[in-house]
């Protein structure tokens, strides 16, 4: 009998085959997983038990101490370092999200050269080749090297950069990013120099103040130190001194601070200085039962003639309210005036800032007592460690001028993203075109790295060494330590190590940068520290410094506080109503740019946690909003979700209308952060960049804009049900009582 393939037989075999397949499917081979033990176990690691390493957060310049939970070599969670004097175990949203920078899927895994700037044609190279190229270019450039950095770079890197540039005769690194410039760090220092004789950033003892008048400062927002002022705010509210503080916020668009204020006054944009001056004038001309009679005397130093009605008309704050502000400020025991970063973006920035700081000057700061403003102290540490010093916008323009003139042969970009961050009018594009070689140290290809010739990917802060000197927002000398908490991912190298290696070949630099690597450098610096609260004697300083997350003075050393403030003869006070850029007819609205509380100045845009989390005030994520008052929206005929074009004399962007009840009807508010072209999959193609609306001058806060509808509408990616929240239940208020 010969088997024949008949239809029946075929079916029979086919059935058998199917049966076998089903059987094979039951025996699932993927059931087994492999367990790979350590070859040599790290002594502090136990399987299944988390280990916490202390380091420093680098998501903004504040420098909070963090501890990172490590299990099986992976960083799982960042928490605040409970021992750290600045943040006492607390952390903000951005700090929590730092893990996604470490594990970002868009990180470069090797150095790359780009053939043609902006082409995105990257070719991976070996580190030796990358370092050699950098070395060749640096050597060829002589002293025509420029460095552009961001404010949250580690102190030791800034130190090394400074030594390198000065050794080869190049100009000092320019530190610029919008977060710093929009918070007016540089201008504030100038004002403090003029008022108090010390170019330092002020620190506010919010927790111990009783009356706080904030002139547009978003203390609880992302500006200065969200965590520190958050902690202070908790104390301010719970009445550590037996009473609940009183917070007045003057700003055109309600910020987080405005939302928590006891009195929110929508002042006309740019007029905060006039309000401050009016208060000073009123204090000088009135007599209250002030706890300190000298206050009136000091006020008289600044005061001029006061015309309440005129000021009221200009600022939008009624005379009654001005009198109220003056009275509470003069009569308070520990009042505090806080200038907002927006004041530094006015044409005459220093006048407004001075007026606000003068209020603090008038209060006079009881020596040693709680409350009030203080200036970051100077001590022996400041000779050992440095903090990246932000440069002013004009410094940046000088650098750009040099670049345009062809006086820069090699540009190094570290920790900043100027192509995204600078307004078009600043002319960075032309300037870059004149620079023969641009080297970026970005771990992720951002807009600037896309314009670079060579990218030497730096490690993210969770994999690298460093330190940070706390400033601003803190009045103790504290150095926060930074160490790698996980084995570095990818073939990335720390910029400091790369620079130290390169410096070896440049004779002038080799002399001042003789360390083998950054750890040797750091160890040498740290070894010189005096005994602190958590560091032991000389033998174990380094270990304990790393273990506890930094160096800070022993508890015995009291905060130096306001006593350090010395007054010079004050300059005369002249605040004038600022001139806004743009014709009022053509551009009817004031532009209020503010720093997004999650994405910051855009550096957080590549982290999905920050992108997808709702903005606290608008509850919108992923999108760029054009916030306007509902009345205005009705007037110009736009509604929520409408795509509008916002145009200023300098540029135009598209955004989605969001009607925001707590803002002036003559103002348009836009948050920074979105509108990336590069910078990874989460950042690119979302929203638009409002910095494009600003011209090439420091006066970024005095621009007028126009809003025109494009006729399109989109769905907002919003968390709240907007009509529900706005209309709520009939006759029923906020469910929170």
């Amino acid at each position: 009998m010969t088997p024949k393939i008949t239809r029946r037989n075929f079916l029979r075999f086919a059935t058998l085959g199917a049966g076998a397949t089903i059987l094979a499917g039951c025996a699932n081979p993927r059931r087994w997983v492999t367990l790979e033990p350590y070859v040599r176990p790290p002594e502090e690691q136990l399987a299944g038990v988390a280990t916490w390493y202390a380091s420093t957060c680098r998501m903004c310049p504040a420098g909070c101490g963090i501890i990172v939970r490590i299990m099986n070599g992976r960083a799982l969670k960042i928490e605040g370092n409970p021992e750290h004097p600045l943040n006492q175990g607390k952390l903000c949203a951005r700090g929590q999200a730092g893990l996604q920078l470490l594990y970002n899927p868009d990180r470069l895994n090797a150095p790359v050269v780009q053939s043609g700037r902006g082409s995105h044609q990257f070719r991976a190279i070996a580190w030796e080749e990358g370092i050699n190229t950098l070395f060749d270019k640096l050597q060829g450039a002589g002293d025509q090297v420029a460095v552009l950095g961001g404010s949250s770079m580690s102190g030791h890197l800034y130190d090394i950069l400074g030594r390198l540039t000065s050794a080869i005769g190049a100009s000092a690194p320019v530190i610029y990013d919008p977060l710093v410039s929009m918070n007016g760090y540089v201008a504030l220092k100038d004002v403090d120099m003029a008022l108090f004789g010390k170019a330092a950033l002020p620190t506010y003892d919010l927790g111990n103040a009783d009356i706080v008048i904030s002139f547009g400062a978003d203390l609880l927002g992302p500006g200065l130190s969200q965590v520190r002022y958050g902690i202070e705010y908790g104390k301010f509210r719970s009445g550590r001194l037996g009473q609940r503080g009183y917070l007045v916020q003057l700003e055109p668009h309600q910020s987080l601070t405005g939302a928590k204020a006891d009195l929110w006054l929508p002042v006309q944009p740019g007029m905060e200085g006039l309000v401050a001056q009016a208060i000073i004038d009123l204090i000088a001309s009135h007599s209250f039962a002030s706890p300190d009679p000298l206050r009136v005397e000091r006020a008289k130093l600044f005061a001029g003639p006061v015309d309440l009605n005129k000021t009221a008309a200009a600022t939008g704050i009624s005379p009654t309210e001005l009198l109220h502000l003056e009275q509470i400020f003069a009569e308070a025991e520990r009042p505090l005036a806080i200038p907002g970063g927006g004041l530094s973006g006015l044409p005459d920035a220093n006048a407004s800032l001075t007026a606000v700081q003068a209020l603090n000057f008038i209060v006079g700061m009881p020596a040693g007592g709680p409350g009030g403003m203080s200036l970051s102290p100077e001590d022996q540490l400041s000779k050992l460690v440095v903090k990246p010093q932000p440069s002013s916008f004009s410094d940046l323009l000088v650098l750009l001028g040099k670049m345009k003139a062809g006086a820069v042969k090699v540009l190094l970009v570290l920790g900043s993203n100027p192509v995204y961050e600078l307004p078009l009018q600043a002319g960075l594009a032309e300037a870059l075109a004149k620079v023969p070689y641009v080297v970026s140290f970005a771990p992720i290809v951002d807009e600037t790295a896309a314009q670079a010739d060579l990218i030497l990917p730096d490690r993210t802060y969770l994999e690298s060494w460093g330190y940070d000197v706390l400033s601003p927002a803190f009045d103790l000398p504290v150095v926060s330590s930074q160490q790698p908490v996980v084995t570095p991912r990818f073939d990335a190298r720390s910029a400091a190590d790369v620079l130290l290696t390169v410096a070896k070949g440049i004779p002038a630099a080799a002399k001042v940068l003789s360390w083998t690597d950054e750890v040797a450098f750091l160890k040498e610096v740290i070894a010189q520290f005096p005994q602190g609260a958590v560091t032991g004697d000389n033998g174990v300083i380094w270990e304990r410094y790393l273990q506890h997350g930094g160096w800070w003075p022993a508890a015995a050393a009291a905060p130096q506080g306001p006593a350090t403030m010395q007054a010079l003869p004050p300059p005369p006070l002249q605040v004038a109503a600022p001139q806004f850029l743009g014709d009022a007819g053509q551009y009817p609205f004031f532009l209020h740019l503010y720093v997004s509380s999650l994405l910051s100045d855009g550096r957080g845009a590549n982290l999905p946690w920050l992108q997808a989390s709702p903005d606290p005030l608008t509850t919108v994520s992923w999108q760029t909003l054009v916030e306007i008052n509902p009345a205005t929206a009705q007037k110009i005929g736009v509604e929520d979700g409408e795509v509008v074009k916002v145009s200023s004399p300098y540029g135009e962007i598209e955004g989605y209308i969001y009607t925001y009840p707590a803002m002036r009807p003559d103002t348009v508010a836009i948050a920074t952060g979105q509108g990336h072209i590069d910078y990874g999959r989460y950042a690119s193609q979302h929203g638009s960049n409002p910095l494009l609306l600003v011209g090439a001058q420091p006066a970024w806060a005095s621009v007028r804009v126009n809003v025109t509808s494009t006729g399109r509408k989109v769905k907002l990616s919003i968390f709240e049900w907007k009509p529900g929240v706005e209309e709520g239940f009939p006759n029923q208020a906020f469910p929170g009582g």
Partner: protein
Amino acid sequence: MALPVHKWTMIIDLDRCTGCGACVVACHAENNVPVQTEREITRLRAMHWIRIERYWQGAYPDVQARFLPVQCQQCGDAPCESVCPVYATNHSPTENLNLQTYNRCVGTRYCQNNDPYKVRFFNFFDPDFEDSLTNQLNPDVTVRTAGIMEKCTFCVQRIRRAEEDALSRGVSLKDGDVIPACVQTCPPGALVFGNLNDPNSQVAAALREQEQRSFRLLESLGTDPAIYYLKGGSSHA
């Protein structure tokens, strides 16, 4: 050794809450809460176990935003528990928590309908933890797949870890041994967490002291929530 019965309680001080959103991201990091894309959020599928509800009070110019952090209230008498046909949502007798057993969930979504606080979140699709971001996932928390309801657990993995450690070492839990991620990170200290059965705990003390400020969300529904809110105060000057 008899295991203790805890009544985990959280206090949310609305006067202190600044709405900064640190708790939201901390929760994402701790609990493997997936991130939703722009498109999904426009389809009302945002997912945050703790959210900060922002309401408006007053009309311009006397208008102010009011923040109300809302997460699972861990009700003593939870409406979501009784409607689950498979006991995926049930009550823990030891911890007095409202549990969500992910692997038992079949996705009827009835619990979300019956949840007056709307703090339950449904995985409409498989979570999209891209590439290397999976490295960060907390190994102590199940990663939920499509069709599963999830919600705030008061970081029950931290509670259990602390309890297991205490049990192994033969000691009892102290106040402060268990801190959920949101409480841990909250800068102004608006969130306080502890065991209400322990009269010396921080929460018990705070509730005694702040009794006149305290209220519970939608208490009239009879859900007996374990989260107490402290009303926002006001200053006059």
